């Protein structure tokens, strides 16, 4: 019964989102795209977090996907749509290879290394002038789909749908049990026969692939990028704050957080051009101290309280 209701709600939401371009102008669609991008990143970050590993390298993989897609079009003359697929797979392959090294690390060492990797990607692309355009970045011959706002919106929505679908699958598969076991107690998970490294590698590769995919979609929708925009720290920071506010270890939490913070930040950006992100810092600190389970956790507690 409850499950049917959830499916119905998801279906209605999907239909509403899909027909939105018929009613909205270019600016609201642009805001919607930015919210959806951050939402996908927030959900993918949370997917890895469910195993207890905190990545600070979202921007690194996002930027890697951006550059892979842009350079495939520019240097290999690939079709933009095809480049999205290849850039996504390429990011995944790089993450898979890196996973063998970084997934041996735990806790703060893992987090700091992911942060450092993001910086390495940025510096390499910044310095390879002839290949990546150096600090000036790259300009594509054109925006994908001729820059039609509804088409760009649907492309971004598709990326989000893939991410949410993967997250939903993660939550319902054996993988979820394995990742939760690793998060709760690695030693006892190992003792129960969970192949920890394998599951972490799957989670790391899949989430990185999703982040690269959103990066590729972003660069094709704007038609240009620079190392500073593709690897902008905000791509790490905002998704993190969104997932925390909404409630970690779930799909619903990051979605709620992204809608709230995404719209709030568009509004704040207009009101306070410098330093509107201070709100994000305050939110992160307050959420960690006062409601570590986020809004979803709060709602769940309230419901449980009413029932009791």
């Amino acid at each position: 019964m409850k499950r049917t209701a959830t499916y119905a709600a998801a279906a209605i939401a999907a239909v509403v989102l899909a027909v939105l371009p018929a009613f909205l102008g270019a600016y609201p669609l642009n805001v919607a795209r930015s919210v959806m991008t951050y939402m996908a990143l927030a959900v993918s970050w949370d997917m890895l977090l469910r195993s207890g590993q905190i990545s600070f390298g979202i921007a690194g993989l996002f930027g890697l996907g951006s550059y892979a897609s842009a350079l495939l079009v520019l240097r290999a003359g690939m079709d933009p749509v095809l480049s999205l697929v290849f850039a996504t797979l390429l990011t995944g392959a790089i993450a898979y290879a890196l996973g063998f090294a970084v997934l041996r690390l735990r806790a703060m060492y893992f987090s700091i290394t992911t942060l450092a990797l993001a910086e390495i990607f940025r510096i390499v692309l910044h310095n390879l002038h002839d290949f990546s355009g150096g600090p000036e970045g790259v300009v594509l011959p054109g925006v994908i789909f001729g820059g039609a706002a509804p088409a760009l919106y649907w492309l971004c929505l598709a990326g989000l749908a893939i991410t949410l679908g993967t997250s939903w699958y993660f939550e319902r598969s054996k993988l979820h049990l394995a990742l939760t076991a690793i998060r709760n107690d690695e030693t006892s998970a190992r003792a129960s026969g969970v192949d920890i490294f394998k599951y972490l590698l799957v989670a790391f590769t899949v989430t990185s692939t999703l982040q690269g995919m959103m990066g590729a979609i972003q660069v094709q929708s704007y038609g240009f990028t620079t190392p500073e925009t593709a690897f902008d720290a905000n791509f790490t920071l905002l998704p993190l704050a969104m997932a925390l506010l909404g409630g970690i270890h779930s799909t619903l939490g990051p979605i709620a957080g992204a809608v709230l913070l995404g719209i709030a930040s568009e509004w704040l950006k207009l009101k306070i051009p410098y330093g509107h992100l201070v709100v994000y810092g305050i939110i992160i600190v307050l959420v960690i101290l006062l409601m570590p389970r986020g809004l979803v956790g709060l709602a769940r507690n309230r419901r449980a309280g009413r029932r009791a």
Partner: protein
Amino acid sequence: MANKRNRTAGLVLAAAVLGILVWRPTVLIYGLQAAGLYASIAIPMGLILGIVHIVNLAHGEFMMAASYLTYTICRASGMDPYLALLPVAAVTAAFGFLVYRLTIRRALKAPELNQLILTFGLAILLTQAANLLFTSQTRKLSFEYVSASVDIGDLSFGVYNFVFVAIAVAMVVGLRLFLTRTKAGKAALAVGQNPRGAAIVGIDVDRAYALTFALASAMVGLMGAVFITRSSIFPAVGSPFTMKSFCLIAMAGIGNIPGILASSVLLGVSENFLKAFRGTREWADIVFFVLIISVILGRSIRGKKA
């Protein structure tokens, strides 16, 4: 164990240093100066990590805030940053104490995840607050004594930055004396080694943590005041130092404060080594990231074998 490792690391470094001295003296001079800067910022973070066992991802931002404070004071009163040094350190000590009391203390028992994200949030809060108050425009105070230089034969180089080397060495010596000679320092050291054991023998763990946090904040505040004599500041100026400091501490091993000096020399000299050549100059920034990753990975692999 740590002493023996320090000694071998020291010997290898000394050999490398001698080689470079003969071949390209400026690499060594500027490398040492950079090392002094890195070490004096990393040491307070190492103190917190060694005793409170918390990675303060807002460490560089503490320094940035202190630099802005110094900037405001010196702009308003025309004072030299060296005169503002002690008041600034006092303010940051109080600030560090408050931050500990209001936030860190509540997250001590929480999973490490929460602590990391909490200090990450503090870092964003400080950077963006600076953005809000001062905008992202760079600020600078200029002083003549900064450009002091010395000529030895054909060689001419700036000497002002040696002040950082002096500060770093003073910090190491001062901390050693504090941790082994004073009652509060011994208590802090004991808490760092085993908080539960320390609590059993009657040491106030919470007080030791608060004191450590305040002391480290005072040290980094002092660095903030000195930092502005030499560099322009902007809201994001501190964040690379957070990562560099963590890297240097990880390289030295947590709790090994003199080791931070050695790892700083390694980082400073290798960065300046790359800067000495036109073709590799732009890649100097990457040295540190390569170092951090190889060190961390090396440690984890060695840890697996042992």
